[in-house]
Each structure stands twice: as C-alpha cells, then as structure tokens.
C-alpha cells in the first residue's frame, strides 16, 4: 500500500478533518490508489526544469495604497455562526 492507515490518520489530523474509524480503510485505499497513479510522474526526467506556479506569470501586480470603501462590520459579521458585541465568538482556546 502506498500510504499506511497510520499516515492517513496523521495527514487527516494536519488537515483538521475527522474520518470515522470504520471508513478509514476504504479512505486510505482510495488515497493510496490515487497516489500510486501520481507516481507515474517519476517516469519524467525533470532535471534542470524550472517549476511553474502560474501559467501566465505576472510579476509585481502593484497598485497605489489608497484608502477605499470596504464592507462594514455588520456585513462582515452577517454570516458568523456566533457573534457578540461586534466580534466573532469561538470556543475557549486557553485551558
């Protein structure tokens, strides 16, 4: 297997996703199959080839640092699952 169940558990933890214990084997199997296919890239000789991050590369898309209107606080908070006094509320962070 290209990727072990233990590795999948670790990656899923990094990604802050939680997979049910019962679904892990199937999930790891599917991911493994895809990674095996991706390994065909190793057949390509890429010595000295520069990597591309954007097909149309623009450099220095700059603009003046001007003050412009932006969305107001009520709009910014409109979709918040929980809010109070103009702030986003999250569960306790420090124990």
């Amino acid at each position: 297997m290209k990727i072990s169940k233990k590795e999948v558990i670790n990656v899923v933890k990094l990604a802050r996703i939680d997979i049910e214990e019962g679904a892990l084997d199937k999930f790891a199997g599917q991911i493994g199959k895809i990674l095996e296919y991706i390994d065909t890239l190793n057949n390509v000789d890429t010595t000295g080839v520069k990597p591309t991050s954007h097909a149309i590369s623009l450099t220095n898309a700059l603009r003046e640092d001007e003050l412009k209107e932006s969305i107001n606080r009520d709009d910014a908070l409109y979709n918040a699952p929980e809010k109070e006094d103009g702030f986003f509320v999250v569960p306790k962070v420090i124990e």
Partner: protein
Amino acid sequence: MKLHELTIQDAHNLLKKKEISSKELTGAVLDRIEEVDEKTGAYITVVKKEALLDAENADKCISKGEITPLTGIPLSIKDLICTKGVRTTCASKILENFTPPYDATVITKLKKAGAVITGKVNMDEFGMGSSTENSGLKTTCNPWDVTRVPGGSSGGSAASVAADMCLGSLGSDTGGSIRQPASHCGIVGMKPTYGRVSRFGLVAFASSLDQIGPLTKNVSDCALIMNTISGYDPKDSTSVPKDVPDYLSALETGIEGLTIGVPREFDLDEGVHPDVSMAVKNAVKKMEELGAKCVDISLPHSKYAVAAYYVIATSEASSNLARYDGVKYGLRDKNQNNLIEMFKNTRKAGFGPEVQRRITIGTYALSAGYYDAYYGKASQVRTLIIEDYSKAFEECDVILSPVAPAPAPEIGENAEDPLAMYLADIFTLSANLAGIPGISLPCGFSNEGLPVGLQLTGGHFNEETILKVAYNFEQATDFHKKKPNI
C-alpha cells in the same frame, strides 16, 4: 418559437425591436424552470422576484434606448460565483446558508450590462468532480437522458442551458468543468485564457487553474458573454491588463488557410468510445472541407497531465479550503469542547467525501518531506506541458480533440472509483495546466442519442481564433439545433 428557446442574440434582436419585453422573456424562462426543473434538478436557488424586478428595470432601460447585447437576458450562475444578497453554497453543506456581502466582478459586469439573473445552479461541491454527483445538496440529471449525469463540475449550468431554463450561464473551469458538461449536454462552453476573466468573487478551488467562462446555446452567444465578462480587474492580481477584442466580429471570417493540429497522443482508436471517435473524425473532415489544413502534432507529455493536475489541484485546494473553519461564516458544528475539536467536527460535517479526499491528498503532497517529490515534481511537469503547447502552436493555429472519452455516464457509474473519474478528464485538464483557452461545441450524437462535443484549444489570449473555427464549424453543421426532449 417559444421564448425560453431563444438564443441570446435572437432574444436581443426582439427586445431591441420591442417585439418582446424582458418581463415576458424572463417570465417564460421562470415558467420553464417550474415546468422541467423537477426532472433535471439544475437549480439550487431560483430568485423569481428579483429576476422579474431586474427584467422590469431592463425594460425601462430599453424603452429609453439604453440596450446592451445582454440587457434583459435571463442567465443562470454557477453557485460558486458570489452574488450579493443571494445564497452562494458551492453545493456544500459547509456553505449551505452563506450569503455573500459582495458581488463577484463578473456579476457586477453582468448587472451593469442589464442582464437578468434567474438563480444559482448546482455543481460538484467546490467544483471537485466531473459529474455533479459530488454536490452536497442535490442531484442534477442530464436533460438528454435523466438516468445520466450532466457532466461537471458546472453540471447545473449545462443542464439549465440545454433544457432552456436560462438563455446562457456562467460556470467555472479548473480541469474541464465548463467544457465537459457542455459536451455532455450538447451546448457550447468556453474556458478563457487564465487571467482573461476576473476571478474576484469566484470561490477558490485551485487558484492557478480556475477560470470563469460562459455556457451557451451557440458560439455567437458565447462570444457575446465573453465581450461582457473579459478584461483586467484590479481586484484580481492574476487578471491580465490586456485589451479585450470584439469576439463577435472575430466570427465574421472563414477558416481557409488555418492549420488545425490533431495530437497523435490523443489516440482516437484506443480508450475513446467509438461514437465519440467517429464524431471527432467527421469533424476533422468537415474542417478540411471548410478549407482548414489538419496536421499531425505531438504533445509528448500529455500522458502525465492527469497525474500532475491532481497533485497541483489538490495541493491548492487543501490550502484554499483551510478557510472553512466554522469561525467567520458557514457551518459550525455545535458538538465541541475546544477550538481544534470545533474545526474538525465542522469540517467533517460540512465537507463531502470527494472534498475530504482531495484535501487529504493535497495536505499529504504539501507536507514536510513530500513537497519536492509531489508538488515540486508536478510543477516541473507542468512546465514541460506548457512547452509542448508552445511548440505545437508554432505548427498550428488551433488544436482539435474530443472533450471527453465517452458520452455522459449513468448516474452512479463511477461512484466507487474516484481515479476512474479523474482519468476521464484527460483531454481537458492540460488546457488549465497550460493556461490556454478552450471551447467545447456539439459535433455529433452517440447511437443512443447522447451529445458528443468537440474541443478546440488555442494559444494564450487567442480566444478569437478558436471562436472563429468553432463558429464556422457550427454554421456548417446542425448538431447545435437539436434539443433534448424533456
């Protein structure tokens, strides 16, 4: 002619001559949605009241002589393009109740042109899929055969256009998500050059690949929408400051003397459905009859495109989708003792299986120790794919290929095998890796009566040439005139 069956151009001419009003036209489209969308399931949200108001405003403008080619024209919008005040779900449970406080730049442009928005249409969750089956909210069926998928990820856009539930639609294309559903639903779909259309307000899947584009009933309508949505936007730092030509006038000339490349790596006799193979071979013949020269070309690295794509797209997705944490918007799972648990439970409850798979692959590919082997390697192969295209476009003006290896599959056919679904994107996703424009247009039907699409791709910012070739082909054939019986 029923009003909802009109093309954008024909509707525009009638509106201009005041033979119809936008209110009548929009009303006819809304009635059509009510009549057939129970069967196709294209729409997630229909904004009836707002659409009729927009139509009234359009009629007022027209009566004052203020008319653009899109004034009063009802269009549907893929549900990952932000619409101010109208729910934008990305077909995900995590954004099921998200209402954007702003419009995407393309929506601002459509509104300025007087277009009427009928609603938001279904898709694979966050654009991740090729069949719209990965929608977290509903199933969309192909109007040509409701037991089959409409393609994806812009499946709702394609189905809504094919079934006359709008006159045109905006979709987005990360690996074929406009062109492939257009092919499966027998309509026209274009992915513009990367940077041609602003992505501001497009919910990000893979930022170096995503591009917004039109799905329409014919090539002229595609050119009309391109005229409206293209151009530089200071709000998108990857949009390109380059003048926009009049795409409609690009259609006026013939294709005598143009060279069309047919890549030898896309073997039409192997791995391609015989009906697709036949339709594409006939298209090559038709192009030659029209005066183009068809030549053999090579894209030697194309067989690595799927692998490179699924590293790059999943890596970018894992980073982009980190924002869904239940804090600022979207779903928050109530079952939580601390912050980390809240993140995990929210993302578990909110993301569907394909999104979870892709985030996991992307996180793995970007994680310490694997970055060079996966993302680094894929980005190098991407360079080689771009170079293949640069060389090819020295020998030809456009490249011709199928869009998909087979007509629309049955619903559920690939449900258990994500890799099989990925491999079906072989003909489309190179264009996203290379950033080049591509169009899909009808070129035939399978023996079972399912539409087959033809793909034409061109060099960077050469939308004009592929539109011209597509238009000449369309005018010489009747495939685009056939409608599904729904």
